[in-house]
């Protein structure tokens, strides 16, 4: 080991970025050629090995990181670009090089596409030998039409993915297609590493274990395939782009120093007249500010020295179907947040009625149903208070009826002063104060 180059960080010039271990690849395999080209590019660049991360995918190419003196990350099949994205985002100054095969480009297609679209500053070398070399020569997304592989014995019925066009048309700033035999490949790799945005080199090569013997496919045939497929080689896309990790950091700087999810402590400012757990249910339609009205009740309760909880039920859609809020107000801490039987139910809409059956069935004479004239005939033992929105003398909309009826109900229920609700709007939903304060005011006319 004493004869090996000593790799100090401060050392001015590294003669190689490879370690002493010989490559493990089959005789004639393109991987060794490409890795030697990569080494030449790194030697020319002289970026400190500590500032370089070689991220490998799976397959024979996945072994490659072990033969370099840089940092190494060997992960799962197809995910190399996603790990590399995380590394680059966490430390944008790192030089992140991804080595993957055509297999990885297939299974990890979405990561490839999205890294290209974002222009994450990675250098991606695709070791493209048209098949899975490690697992037995199965066909991949780049296997030419008609080619023989262990899973396409009668000729590949599929058509190959054009990796370069895919990433190039979707925003990648630097896209190159060539072969492992290209004399200038070290320079192209060096340019790709120097390029700040997403750079990809689709490097065609021979798999001497499977693809070459299956298809009588040598250097000459591979060069012929490029022409036969009507593809261009060389630098196919080159454009000026914003490198993603630096761009994100720049955007984020504008956010610095703003308060981070600040605590919003509430001191009791109002009295309350609640001596036991009080269960209030609001039943209306999604998109009609039912949960929002419920939250105001909770804030108002806490402003009055109560403990409050709110549990909501709604479908997966956003502005259609039901929206039911179960609110508990209590002078003591609340553990269980569910409501089996409401002490008061505010029934706001037909969607709400559909979900209120079990509440209405359990409610007794002690309980109160607040609702609009439309539902005056609803069957329940609860005492009914019919609230006529027309009396409010404000324009009733889909989004203010919930608050109007809830505020009117609170006036009747005497849980805490209605002023607590007003302050809750001013303090916690100030953006909507212009709309909501007149509604709370108008609610007094419903119960006068």
């Amino acid at each position, binding site marked *: 080991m004493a004869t090996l180059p000593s790799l100090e960080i401060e050392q001015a010039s590294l003669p190689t970025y490879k370690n002493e271990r010989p490559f493990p690849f089959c005789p004639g395999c393109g991987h060794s050629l490409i890795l030697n080209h990569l080494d030449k590019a790194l030697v020319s660049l002289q970026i400190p090995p500590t500032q370089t991360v070689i991220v490998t995918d799976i397959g024979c190419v996945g072994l490659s990181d072990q033969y370099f003196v840089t940092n190494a990350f060997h992960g799962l099949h197809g995910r190399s670009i996603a790990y590399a994205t995380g590394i680059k985002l966490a430390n944008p100054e790192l030089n992140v090089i991804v080595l993957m095969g055509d297999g990885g480009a297939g299974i990890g297609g979405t990561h490839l596409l999205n890294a290209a679209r974002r222009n994450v500053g990675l250098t991606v070398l695709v070791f493209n030998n048209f098949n899975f070399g490690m697992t037995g020569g199965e066909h991949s997304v780049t296997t030419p039409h008609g080619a023989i592989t262990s899973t396409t014995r009668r000729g590949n019925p599929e058509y190959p993915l054009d990796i370069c066009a895919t990433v190039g048309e979707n925003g990648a700033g630097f896209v190159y297609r060539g072969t492992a035999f290209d004399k200038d490949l070290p320079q192209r790799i060096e340019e790709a590493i120097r390029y700040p945005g997403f750079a990809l080199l689709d490097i065609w090569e021979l798999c001497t274990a499977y693809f070459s013997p299956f298809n009588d496919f040598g250097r000459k045939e591979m060069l012929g395939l490029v022409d036969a497929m009507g593809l261009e080689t060389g630098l196919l896309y080159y454009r000026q782009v914003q490198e993603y990790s630096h761009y994100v950091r720049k955007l984020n700087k504008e956010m610095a120093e703003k308060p981070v*999810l600040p605590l919003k402590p509430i001191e009791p400012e109002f009295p309350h007249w609640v001596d036991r757990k009080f269960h209030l249910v609001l039943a209306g339609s999604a998109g009609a500010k039912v949960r929002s009205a419920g939250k105001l009740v909770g804030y108002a309760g806490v402003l009055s020295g109560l403990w409050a909880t709110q549990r909501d039920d709604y479908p997966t859609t956003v502005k259609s179907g039901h929206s039911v809020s179960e609110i508990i107000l209590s002078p003591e801490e609340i553990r269980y947040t569910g409501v089996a039987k409401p002490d008061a139910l505010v029934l706001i809409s037909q969607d709400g009625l559909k979900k209120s059956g079990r509440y209405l069935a359990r409610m007794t004479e002690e309980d109160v149903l607040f609702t609009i004239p439309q539902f005056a005939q609803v069957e329940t033992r609860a005492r009914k208070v019919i609230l006529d929105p027309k009396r409010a003398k404000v324009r009733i909309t889909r989004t203010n009826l919930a608050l109007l009826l809830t505020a009117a109900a609170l006036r009747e229920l005497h849980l805490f002063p209605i002023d607590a609700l007003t302050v809750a709007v001013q303090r916690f939903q100030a953006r909507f104060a212009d709309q909501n304060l007149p509604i709370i005011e108008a609610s007094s006319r419903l119960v006068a």
Partner: protein
Amino acid sequence: MAKEYVDGATAIARGALAAGCDFFAGYPITPATPILLHMLNELPKVGGVGIEAEDEIGAISMCIGAAMAGARPMTATSGPGISLYSENIGLAIMGEVPLVIVDVMRMGPATGGATTPAQGDIQFIRWGTSGGYPIIALAPSSVAECYTLTMRAFDLAERFRTPVFILVDKEMNYAMATVDIHEYVDVPVGQRPLVPQQVPEPAVVDGVRVNAVTGQPDPRLRPEETYLPYDWDPIDAVPPTSPFGGPHITRFTTSSHDEHGFLTKDPEKVRRLNDHLRLKILRHRHEMEFGIPDVQEGAETLFLSFGTTARAMREAVDRARAQGKAVSGLTLHTLWPVPERLILEAVAGHERVIVAELNHGQYVREIERLMYREARRTQTLPPEVLSLTRADGELIMPEQFLEFLT
């Protein structure tokens, strides 16, 4: 007394930020999305980075990459997303990656009920990746605990270099609750063992490279190495690491590896690695036994629960005692590894243990296992272990606990 009216998602995000989280990658999924939104909004303010990834696999992969570049990552998803995280959870275990994963459980199987609470991922997250290696999982049962246990999750993830789950459900994440602000308890958050961040001086003594961890010449070191990325002694010790971009070369791998991070099939090295991954958690299980035992003298029955269901349990305990009935309750905050001492101590002297969970009976298996093992060990009869479950989308109600006491 100042209080706050707030949801669990906010408390989890605050806990993460208080613990030094500086990276978040996630993919939108109900009911975990509020955490994604909070983290993407807040991280830029503290110099961190948040990203909505292309899918869940991308999200956890980015977190793992970021972790090895020195970040403190968190991600959040629900059961369907955990399925997609599965392979990378194994990678994080194998490569020893500090990573906090919030699983906001929803009713399954498959897409199940997106807005429906459930606790169906208990065994799934424990055995959710190939190989069967241990993970750590914490389950808060209040908004304030969401804050504190998220900090604990970061502490454990960092110190043990392992994925740590925070298990909540739709109710815990979304429901508004009142919190006495004094209940937000900060806990110390440790750091992954780090190699001293400078190259040893001198770097070579008598032709042998000096290990930056020990400061001593180490003949095992290769020419490019200043430390060994997967070197531990004793076997349950957590190996020091160095972030990509620091002064040392770090090798990371998902494959069975030796101390250099090179692939190996050497049976002795593979055995040592696999034992290490298991024992670094299991030998330290008693350092992470969290929960709230509430044992009443003379009680024959002990309720045991966690998360949202523990809230109904605690209410049932209060109501039973108000009626003059003796009953005990145990709220678990640690689910994995099973907090055996905590459970055995709380159960001691009771004739019945009722395990309540919002699924078809998953954690009850652990309690049965533990009770029978303890009975065998002590040559006594085990307590009766009963299961209270529910899987119709509704919460387990306090009344369902109380039925056991009639």
